């Protein structure tokens, strides 16, 4: 394993990228720490269990509310269509799914009838975490998948409050191994979730598998800032403000320290686009938001 990591330094950037973010190495990043792969998932799980109930508040505070603008724009790029089967992965508290459904309501009012079959009075969170081979078909035209039950619980609660609960299927599962048959979805989105996954390439491949031909993969994620001066201020702001605010509001310094580190180790825009292409997506491109603080990557399965 040591020899392999030595050899990887000499390889070209694509392969070394795939190695660090992929299936073959035995350690991976947890923020700036290097941890064994099986540990990353447990640690990420711990982070999100701790932050779940203050998650939305912290997002607002850390980004000064700008994350709402990013997410609104993201949905405009998606351009929801009522005929589509839609899945939002790592969608925990439901921000993207709710925006998707509200956008549908605005432009296609007739589609707002309940579309979960069979009719479900109380929203269930299906647990698909067992590694059996049984695959299922989606029960709704809007599926939200997340690996963490606490985040899903917050999302479920919010969906009850804004009356969208009967249009969403909540499912607890790992993004690297979705429990759906091939070619089920027209659109797959993942927003601010993929950097927490252990094997980014497996997540993208799995997205490819469950998308129909012609389907679109869209990823909204933090990325690298393209301006040196802004980079400096962004770094200072992140390191100085975010962990203390996390301590005061959510009583959790470490999770927010992990957050800022995980942003910095995530591959930059072009590298991530190459990774998406290597999973057979076509017409892959990206768009920077806020000078590269966030970026939307898109690819089609053709």
């Amino acid at each position, binding site marked *: 394993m040591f020899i392999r990591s030595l050899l990887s330094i000499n390889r070209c950037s694509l392969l070394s990228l795939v190695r660090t973010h992929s299936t073959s190495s035995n350690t991976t990043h947890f923020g700036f720490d290097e941890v064994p792969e099986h540990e990353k998932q447990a640690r990420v799980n711990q982070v999100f269990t701790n932050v779940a109930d203050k998650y939305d508040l912290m997002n607002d505070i850390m980004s000064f509310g700008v994350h709402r603008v990013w997410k609104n724009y993201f949905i405009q790029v998606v351009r929801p269509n009522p005929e589509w089967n839609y899945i939002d992965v790592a969608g925990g508290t439901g921000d993207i799914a709710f925006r998707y459904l509200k956008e549908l309501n605005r432009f296609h009012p007739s589609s707002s009838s309940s579309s979960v079959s069979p009719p479900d009075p109380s929203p269930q969170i299906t647990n698909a975490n067992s590694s059996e081979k049984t695959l299922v078909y989606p029960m709704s035209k809007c599926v939200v998948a997340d690996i963490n039950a606490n985040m899903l619980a917050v999302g479920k609660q919010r969906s009850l409050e804004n009356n969208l609960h009967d249009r969403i299927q909540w499912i607890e599962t790992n993004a690297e191994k979705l429990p759906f048959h091939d070619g089920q979805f027209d659109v797959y989105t993942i927003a601010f979730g993929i950097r927490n996954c252990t094997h980014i390439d497996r997540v993208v491949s799995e997205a490819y598998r469950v998308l129909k031909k012609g389907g679109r993969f869209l990823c909204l994620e933090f990325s690298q800032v393209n301006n040196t001066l802004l980079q400096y201020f962004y770094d200072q702001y992140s390191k100085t*403000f975010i962990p*203390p*605010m996390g*301590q*005061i509001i959510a*009583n959790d*310094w470490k999770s927010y320290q992990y957050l800022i580190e995980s942003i910095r180790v995530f591959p930059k825009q072009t590298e991530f686009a190459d990774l998406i292409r290597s999973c057979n997506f076509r017409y892959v491109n990206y768009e920077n938001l806020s000078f590269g603080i966030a970026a939307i990557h898109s690819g089609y399965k053709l």
Partner: protein
Amino acid sequence: MDRLYGTHKPTNLVQKSILAVGSGVMSILDPSRDDMISIFGETTGVLALKSMQEKMIVDPEGDEILKKRPVINTRTVDLNFLKSLPAGTLGKEYSNFLAKYNLTPDARRPVSFIDDVELAYVMRRYREIHDLTHVTLGMPINMLGEVTVKWFEGIQYGLPMCVLGGFFGSVRLGPRHTAKYLNLTLPWIVRTARQSRLFINVYFEKHWHKPLVEFRRELNIIEPPPKL
């Protein structure tokens, strides 16, 4: 800055200011957040801790505590032994106190935001002897008892958290307690705090067997007012 001890989280001045202001505000808004109170204490207490450290160095018992750095938790203190001591001794009364209020010495939050190992230890020691301070002064855990102990600690140590806690805590006392407070407790505690020995210098672990009355006399503590 590197981590100087196990639970250390290095912070710069801006971060400390954010923590100090934020935790101060949160402690008032949500008094159940005891983590906010401890962080407020750590971020505002450095000067007071330095003065405490200086006073410990010049006192033989205090100096011994600084050198040996004893800690009080269920691994270092044999609670069964304390329970077996005769009634009226420091150890027995401490054991009764823990049992009565269902407390454990393990519940103290670790120190994170103090950037000096010895000062971090002094803060830790201060937290760990808080319950023993209650026992030695004969103060219960109710609001009045806590405010009294905070006054005592504020006068003896000068920690801003204690001073503010005593001050603002007393504003929240109910009418019955306020009367008792103004007439009995406050004059007694101020006099006691000023004339008794500094508690941070007391090596409590060596005095388990001592009867409380004798222990108080050694520390020059006036007996507490009745029926508190």
